């Protein structure tokens, strides 16, 4: 079956939602550092360049090995904490940037501001990563927006989601949970979309539960790492917006204005 390329219309306007349910907006570049990637050097260079991100922590990979000896408790053989980079946070902890050997990411936590502010800061930090890590190629770009819509008590999922899950025909049972993870391709473009819809249960009796609509637009494939890539990010943003506005009922969208 052939798929016609879709047209990405960057002049299309999307309504600004002053109460958008965004809990995290992320830009990620996966690229292998080709500069020296040593803990002391990288830490010093980044701390000098990020005075407005005063909180930082070492990022490590934890690896554990166990041997099953047949004598009861597994024997731990090794416990490695491999240093992979640093994570920096603003003083209010609302912005997080990760600088790893193989990855750069920038997250804005709620309250989200707007795309221009978000992407301007992301690209500023990305340029710092380019100076320190000196990758020559990007292997993957991700633009991910996690939306969380609170609700209490019993609801009908079809009152929120356009493609709500349906119970089997003739088996009228309520949902206790669901997880839809769709991966969509974008014909004519090197993009894909991971679309996750699920419910995050309430933590306590007084807390709401949440419908989560998690939209992760990605581009896989090598690109030169020396440009801002604003054109690609704008296209990915358009796809993200189309996925968001196409996932929720208009009445739900209206509640975010």
């Amino acid at each position, binding site marked *: 079956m052939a798929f016609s390329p879709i047209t990405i219309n960057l002049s299309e306007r999307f309504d600004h939602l002053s109460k958008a349910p965004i809990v995290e907006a992320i830009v990620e570049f*996966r690229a292998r550092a080709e500069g020296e990637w040593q803990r002391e050097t990288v830490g010093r260079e980044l701390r000098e360049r990020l005075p407005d991100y005063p909180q930082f922590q070492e990022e490590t990979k934890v690896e554990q090995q166990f041997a099953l000896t047949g004598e009861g408790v597994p024997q731990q053989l090794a416990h490695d904490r491999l240093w992979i980079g640093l994570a920096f946070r603003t003083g209010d902890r609302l912005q997080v940037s990760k600088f790893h050997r*193989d990855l750069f990411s920038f997250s804005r936590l709620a309250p989200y501001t707007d795309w221009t502010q978000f992407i301007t800061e992301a690209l500023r930090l990305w340029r710092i990563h380019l100076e320190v890590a000196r990758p020559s190629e990007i292997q993957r770009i991700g633009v991910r927006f996690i939306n969380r819509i609170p609700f209490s008590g019993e609801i009908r999922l079809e009152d929120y989601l356009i493609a709500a899950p349906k119970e089997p025909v003739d088996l009228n049972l309520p949902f206790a949970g669901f997880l839809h993870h769709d991966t969509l391709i974008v014909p004519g473009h090197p993009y894909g979309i991971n679309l996750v819809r699920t419910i995050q249960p309430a933590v306590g009796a007084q807390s709401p539960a949440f419908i989560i609509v998690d939209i992760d637009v990605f581009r896989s494939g090598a690109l030169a790492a020396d440009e801002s890539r604003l054109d690609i990010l704008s296209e990915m943003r358009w796809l993200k917006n189309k996925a968001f506005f196409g996932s929720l009922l208009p009445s739900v969208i209206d509640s975010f204005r």
Partner: protein
Amino acid sequence: MKTALTLSAVVTTAAITCGASDSANFIADLTQKSREHIQRAETFGNQSQQLRQELCATAEECAVANWDGYGALPIEIEAYRNAYRLIEALPATTPTPTVGAEPDGAVTFEWYVTPHRTISVSIDANALLNYAALFGVSSVFGTEPFLGELPSQISGLIARLHMK
């Protein structure tokens, strides 16, 4: 609903943009549990399980220096870990390779159709993928970093190898 399940160049089930929020961690945990649930079924999880077992067996056989009698280096522990992650990142539709070791301490995966149609991909301690493919008189080789998903250059070669 339209499907395009044969278009494997863009799609991978492994890589998700990382997040820092509690919601991102919740989703990552949920999708990982869902993946594990599917892989527990014999029908869907057999390939991954088989590859992990083969990797373990290879690592044990090649754990000492000179395992081949010609001075080969033992498999490096980081190469083993990277190979494990590569197995996790292989799309479910990927044909099953065989697992082996390189004399330089890397782990290798081979897709073999005939002596003149084969692909070999090795992964080393630095998570670099060195690949070489033979398609009759054509050959392709190169190096790509492994950043959590199988590079499209390699998945494309695997798809080409198994094209009917």
